[in-house]
């Protein structure tokens, strides 16, 4: 069973919620960091890493000896990653999506594929929590293949807390896709509300059951609450704007370890999430 933690706006507490939940669930759970551009969960869970593996994607190469410069590959590549020159085909690796369309199209069988590393997958343990995280190499544009690799690194029968990247575009879709339930995180500010409405549009289109956690309650106003009421969205938990928690975060400490009332909030939230995810699992 997989529970994803997402948000439209960045910095509203995805990782805070994910690591606090992981701490509560402890040995029962796997924490999977799919925010491969800005992975932060390891800074709080502080896992011992057992294995670091390069993750590679396929990238096209053209055998100049077989190529007759017909140009079919260039026409078929929808990502403009190939440029056919007399006697040579240039491949722009960062643009290549590794889709294989050129390989299928080449009438001379001149195109083959090599593996190009784009990032790493780390696996380890943090006080009983199994840790899986991806980290994209700097300068690489496309994170979805690495996100999918993180998801493949967890087994079907694992109970997973999946930390997603912010926003509503393809890295987020790839992260939350296939999860049983999504926790949409927000804060009660105009930015938080605006990006929440975008993220709700995305998650509804994907057909994934979800609820909202409002973080930093006390900041801003109640427009997020009104929106959720109007849209019939369950508010799973309200987390207070709390200087003690901000201080813990700044020191790399997981809040439930040091603040008793936070412990209670997250025990409740975790119970509720297990119930929600289980009921969608059954109805599916």
């Amino acid at each position: 069973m997989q529970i994803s933690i997402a948000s439209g706006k960045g910095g509203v507490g995805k990782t805070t919620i994910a690591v606090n939940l992981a701490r509560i669930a402890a040995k029962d759970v796997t924490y999977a960091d799919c925010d491969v551009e800005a992975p932060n969960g390891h800074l709080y869970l502080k896992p011992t890493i057992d294995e670091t593996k390069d993750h590679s994607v396929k990238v096209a190469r053209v055998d100049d000896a077989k190529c007759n410069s017909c140009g079919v590959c260039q026409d078929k590549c929808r990502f403009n990653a190939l440029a056919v020159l007399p006697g040579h085909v240039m491949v722009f690796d960062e643009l290549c999506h590794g889709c294989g369309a050129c390989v299928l199209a080449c009438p001379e069988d001149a195109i083959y594929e090599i593996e190009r590393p784009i990032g790493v997958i780390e696996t380890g343990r943090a006080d009983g929590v199994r840790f899986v995280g991806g980290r994209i190499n700097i300068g690489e544009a496309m994170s979805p293949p690495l996100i999918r690799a993180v998801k493949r690194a967890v087994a079907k029968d694992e109970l997973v807390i999946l930390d997603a990247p912010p926003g509503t575009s393809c890295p987020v879709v790839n992260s939350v896709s296939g999860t049983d339930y999504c926790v949409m995180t927000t804060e009660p500010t105009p930015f938080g509300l605006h990006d929440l409405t975008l993220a709700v549009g995305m998650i509804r289109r994907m057909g994934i059951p979800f609820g909202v956690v409002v973080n930093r309650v006390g900041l801003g106003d109640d427009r997020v609450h009104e929106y959720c009421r109007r849209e019939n969205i369950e508010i799973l938990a309200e987390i207070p704007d709390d200087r003690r928690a901000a201080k813990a975060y700044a020191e790399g400490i997981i809040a439930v370890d040091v603040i008793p009332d936070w412990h209670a909030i997250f025990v409740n939230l975790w119970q509720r999430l297990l119930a929600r995810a289980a009921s969608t699992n059954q109805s599916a």
Partner: protein
Amino acid sequence: MAKQITIISGKGGTGKTTLTASIAALAESAVLADCDVDAADLHLILTPHINETHDFAGGFSATIDPKACTSCGLCLDACRYDAISDDFAVNDLMCEGCGACFDICPAQAVIFKRETAGQWFESTTRFGPMVHAALAAGQDNSGKLVSQVRKRANEIAEEQNKDLVIIDGPPGVGCPVISAVTGVDLILICAEPTPSGRHDLLRVLELAGHFGIPAALCMNKSDLAPEKSREILSEAQQNGAHFVGSLPYDTQAVAAMMQSKSVVEFYEGPLVKAIEEVWANTTELVSSLTKPDN
């Protein structure tokens, strides 16, 4: 040509857009470009009047006509994105738009066409012209939309003799960020003194180094962790960052946002002074930097 500054942070929620809105208010001759296209927020403060709306043609997307499909399965083998179900329906959210299924289908059952993936806008704000966009939820090609927004912002700067293009960038280090920073004169990083803030700041600095773009650091909420702020600052400087100033934590930042105002319009206080100083240092830095290629 107008100078270009992109404000990014790596980690989301460190105050990028709040800082950008104040900079928009302080800059005297600038075009504004919101390049956080999948969670754009700058318009909530700048309340632009939209003059022109353009459709953004994104990538391609495949659908399969069940009447023409013979269930041969070749498309399933060709698709590397698990976007085609066993009963030959395409999940448009997973479809990469590569066309492998279209190319291989012997029954011509695949319909392959360009999708409208969002819109972009040319607008007027109380601080000058603005170009912004809205990517449709769940779309890819955000980098292409960022390039489109920047291209038009640069043209407007040229047409209206503006000195600066101020770009509000997206979080992370991936495709839309790369599109938002390539070729700019300065990356202004808005960081916060937390372990995540530090970690993601260093990744953004590495990105700036990778593309050979000068980077400056503005440390937000530095008074919440003064010691940590100093450590992060010196680490950032060792990694090539210029320093343009620190901002204190101030609840007035949210109060201003609640009223759709930039902080510098909203009140007088230490945060405003600090933002003015950051901006003065940033403009000075930009004019002292000369791009290697011109």
